Structure formats: C-alpha cells, structure tokens
C-alpha cells in the first residue's frame, strides 16, 4: 500500500481514538493523504457539493423528521396500547409489549433512537410498578431499538442505497424477514429469562379476564391505533405499488405524522413540532458534514487504489465466499463497537462493494448484511448510542444496562446476523417476489 494511504488511514484511526468529531477526522485524513502524495485538493469542494446534491439524501432527511415528529404526536401511546392488547397475556408479556411496539415503531421511524425515545419513558416506569426491573426493561428496549433499522423504511438502508447505487425498495424489504426473526427471537428469550429479572410488584396489571374481553380490547386498541398504523401502510404500499418515489414517501410520512398528531390525536402543538424541527436539523447538519467529508475521503482512497488493494488483499487471504463474508461481519461488528452507523456506511460501503462483486455476492444481500451489522453496532458496547440514550432516559447506570443486552446480543442478534449472511434466501426472497429478479439481480 502506498505511503499516502498508510498515513491517511493511520491518521483516520488516530483521530477516532482521540475523540475528534468524525467529520473533521475525515477532512484531516484527506489533507494528510493529499500532502503525502502531493495531490491537489481542488476536487474536494466539488465532491462535497455533489455528495449532498442527491434525492435519496432528501428521503433520509424526511424519515428522520417523521421519526422526530412521532415522539410528540401521541402515536407511540396507541402503538403501546395495541401491543399490550396483543401480547400482554404471554408470560413476560409486558416486556414483549415493548418488543412488538418496537417492530411497529420501526415501521414508522426507520431509525433506532426515536424508538427508544418514545418507548422507554412510556414503558419502563409502568413495568417497574408491575415487578419488572428497570435495568432489564430498559435493556430489552435498547436491544429492540435496532428493529427500527430492519423494519422498512430504514434510514441506514437509504444511506446504503445512496452510496452503493442500489434499489431503495429492494434494500428496504431485504431486512424485513431478518427483522421479524430477530423480534421473534427476542420474545422467545424474554419468555425464558424474564423471571430472573423480576422484583416484588407494587401493582397488578389489569388484563382482560375472558377471551371475549381480550378480543374486544384488541379491537378497541386497534381502532384507536388505525391512524398511527396508517403511516407505515401508506408509505410502504406507496413505494412498492410504484405510487411514490422514496423521497415522496418520506414527505408523505412527515405530513401524515404531523396531521395525525395535530388534528387526530391532538397531542402535538406548534411548539413541540418546532422542537422536532430543531432536533431534526441537528442530525441533518451532522449528516451533511459527515457525508460530504466522508465521500471526499473515500473518493480519494478509491482513486489511490485502496478499494482494489483491499479486494486483492482479502481475496489473497481466501477465495472462500463464506470465510470472507465472516471477515466482513467481524470487521463491521468491531467498527460498530466504536463508530456510529452513518460514518461506517460512508467509509465501508465503497470499499466492500468491489469485494462483494468479485465474490458474486448480490448487492441487495450485501445491503441487508451491512444494515444488520450497523444495527448491531447501535447496541454493542462500548460505543452504543442506544445504551447512551437508554441510560439517560431510564435513569439506569450504563454497567447495569449492558448485561441483559449482552444476553440478547449473543443469543439472538449474532445468530440472526449469521443466518442473514449465510442464507441469502432470507433477505432476497421477498424483494425478488415483490420487485422481480431484474431489480434484485441474480443470487
């Protein structure tokens, strides 16, 4: 590898290690590489500008905005009530409520933090009264938060499509079956282990006494949740029926969520809506610099032969597709332990796509693998944004939240990742069924 690349990559990892914001790490590493190779920086501003001049990025912005509006619209309450009616009777079912609600919320937000932001304040104090320990409930909810990445729409999925130039509709739906397997696995593990995390209850949950009452409660809660569930319905049917493009679907999701919050549930105010706008802007500003400078850095790496060198290096170690996919997973998991999902996608996707192409791995399948890994990164310590937010919202120390999360990670998260990696059918069958082989490609 050339000296410029070595210096650039070394500075990149050093920058991460010392805690410099990642956008400046990308920028500084680019300048260091250019300095060593005596390259011209003239391409940087143009590349930055063209990186954000993109319709898919607009869709990302809309889904982040919709997710932010969700937390102030009253939708989460109705989702929790419906989930409670559906699974509240199963042993440990009150925690399952959180897992099922995370599936629904994932379909609404496409991200992980709005799921935690909405569910932890709603469920953790309530379940504590019913005898579920705070650390356990918060841990399960944090673990479930990455369902927001897997159940379509998915913000990391969009970002993958932006960088790898793949069909948004195909990548969205490719993580649906792995997401449902993950949710089912979580419910199963919770049913087995939840008794270990119980404490004396202060209250007894009121559950319907008879089957008829249960059905009536499901009906009532479903009726009140119809406006909330309408959002993913409109978005997903719109995309897959070819009615909307993904960015139009995002705009419809924003307007729909705002309309439900303002006029149907009447829990959103103009002030709380403006608060959501401001919190969305912070995320979008972060993405602007990350994507801009990240694209500049990866473009330079590719121009200097990094992608080819990495492909040659990996294929030199092994030509075995399964071994290389395992190596990719390990690399992404390790990166996910330290770096946020968005920079991981920006830096790794352009480097991994040529390797996947050389191995004949379908790029929609690669998208499912990468999105799953990025999702696992959100819940894997030490740098796990879900845990940071979860500890603050649930008022549980970091060290207490991590052990139950590790159980879910190793018993469900990692095995489901391996299934997704080694059984392409799980991620490719549904997109092929809906969109056809000409969109998804051969597998």
């Amino acid at each position, binding site marked *: 590898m050339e000296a410029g690349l070595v210096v650039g990559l070394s500075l990149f990892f050093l920058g991460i290690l010392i805690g410099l914001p990642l956008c400046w790490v990308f920028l*500084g590493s680019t300048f260091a590489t250019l300095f060593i190779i005596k390259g011209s920086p003239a391409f940087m501003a143009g590349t930055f500008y063209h990186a954000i001049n993109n319709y898919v990025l607009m869709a990302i912005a809309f889904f982040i905005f919709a997710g932010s509006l969700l937390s102030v619209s009253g939708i989460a309450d109705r989702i929790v009530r419906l989930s409670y009616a559906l699974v509240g009777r199963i042993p440990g079912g009150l925690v399952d409520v959180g897992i099922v609600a995370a599936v629904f919320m994932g379909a609404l937000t496409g991200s992980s933090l709005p799921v935690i932001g909405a569910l932890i304040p709603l469920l953790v104090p309530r379940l504590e009264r019913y005898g579920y320990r705070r650390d356990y409930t918060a841990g399960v909810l944090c673990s479930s938060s990455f369902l927001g990445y897997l159940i379509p729409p998915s913000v990391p999925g969009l970002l993958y499509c932006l960088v790898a130039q793949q069909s948004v509709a195909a990548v969205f739906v490719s993580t649906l079956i792995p997401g449902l397997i993950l949710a089912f696995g979580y419910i199963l593990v919770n049913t087995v282990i939840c008794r270990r995390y119980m404490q004396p209850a202060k209250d007894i949950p009121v559950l319907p006494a008879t089957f008829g009452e249960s059905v009536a409660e499901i009906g009532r809660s479903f009726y009140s949740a119809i406006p909330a569930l309408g959002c993913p319905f409109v978005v997903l049917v719109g995309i897959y029926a070819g009615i909307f493009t993904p960015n139009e679907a995002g705009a419809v999701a924003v307007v729909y969520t705002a309309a439900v919050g303002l006029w149907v549930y009447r829990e959103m105010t103009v002030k709380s809506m403006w608060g959501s706008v401001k919190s969305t802007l912070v995320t979008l500003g972060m993405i602007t610099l990350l994507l801009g400078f990240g694209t500049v850095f990866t473009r330079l790496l590719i121009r200097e032969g990094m992608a080819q060198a990495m492909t040659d290096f990996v294929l030199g170690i092994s030509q075995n597709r399964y071994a290389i996919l395992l190596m990719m997973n390990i690399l992404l998991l390790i990166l996910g332990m330290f770096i946020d999902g968005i920079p991981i996608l920006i830096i790794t996707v352009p480097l991994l796509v040529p390797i996947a192409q050389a191995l004949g791995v379908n790029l929609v399948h690669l998208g499912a693998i990468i999105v799953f890994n990025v999702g696992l990164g959100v819940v894997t310590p030490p740098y796990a944004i879900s845990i940071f937010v979860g500890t603050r919202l649930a008022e549980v120390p970091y060290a207490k939240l991590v052990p139950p999360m590790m159980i879910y990670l190793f018993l469900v998260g990692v095995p489901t990742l391996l299934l997704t990696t080694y059984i392409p059918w799980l991620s490719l069958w549904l997109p092929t069924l809906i969109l056809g082989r000409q969109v998804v490609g051969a597998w």
Partner: protein
Amino acid sequence: MTRRDGVWGAILGFIRSAETALCGVGLILTTLLIFAQVVNRYLLHFEIMFLNDLALYTFIGFMLVAAAYTTWNEGHVAVDVFRERMVRGRPVAAGAYRVVLVLLAIFTLCLLLPVAYGFMQRAIQYPQYGTLVRWFNESWLQILLFWSLLFVLLHLLVIAWRDIGNLVQTIRAGSRKEGR
C-alpha cells in the same frame, strides 16, 4: 457582561436565530414542495415538472446551513469513550483536551476554506442554471457552500473561545484551592 460582550452576543444571537429560521423554513418548505408534487399528480392530475428540482435546491441550501447550525449546537458525533477515560477526574486535563480538539477542527477547516473559495469563484465566473427551474442559478448553492463553511468556522472559534475561558477559570480555581 461588558458592552463589547453585549454587542458580540447580540450579533451571535442574530446569526443563530437566522440559521435556525432558514433551516427550519427550508426543511418545512422542502417537505411541502415534495408533498405538493404528490398532491398535484394524484389529486389535481397536474404535474409541475420543476417542483422536484426546486425542492432539491431548497434542500441543498438548508442542509448546508444546517452544518453551521449543528456546529453551534455541538452535534457533530465523535467517539468519546477513550477521551472520557483518559481525562476522567482531571478537570484541567479535560478542559485542555477540549481546547486541543476544537483547535484541531479549526485547523483542518482552515485548510479547506481556500479550496471552497476557489470553488465559489468558479461558480461566480461560470453560472449554471437549473434544467427545469431555468431562473434558478445553481451557482448560488456553490457560493453558499463557502459561506456556510465560514459560519462553521465562526461557531468553532466561539466554542474555542468559550472552552479556553473555561479552562482558564478551572486552572485559577485549582490554584486558589492549592493556595488555601
């Protein structure tokens, strides 16, 4: 607060309010333009071809300003696990570390500014008009790129100034404690 702080504070306050308003209105406007596209197509059966492009231009504009907005809100992500471990329980070291990081960010951004300035000059020299929105000069956005990076720099300088002030105070408080 001195009079100079007051004037400076008012200017900063105005810049921040302007950035918030521009970005907020931009986000809402982009959403409404794209939503209008859907309404036009399916309800009014009247497609306005330039809406998509106009929405994209609005979007790029507010995203560039949002970079500055995020900077003064200190929202740019970093891996701070190791940093926190290194300086835990040592307020002076923590303060000095913060200052060094901000100065590093300022240094790297200063390297980029001449490049962005050149990009802006070229955009002024060779204006590019939108394909569908013929009156819209895309060069405005390329000029905005330079200005928003300049505002990012301004906010970083303000943060550096604040952090240096905090560091000095921490050192003084430490030496007063030792003096007693």
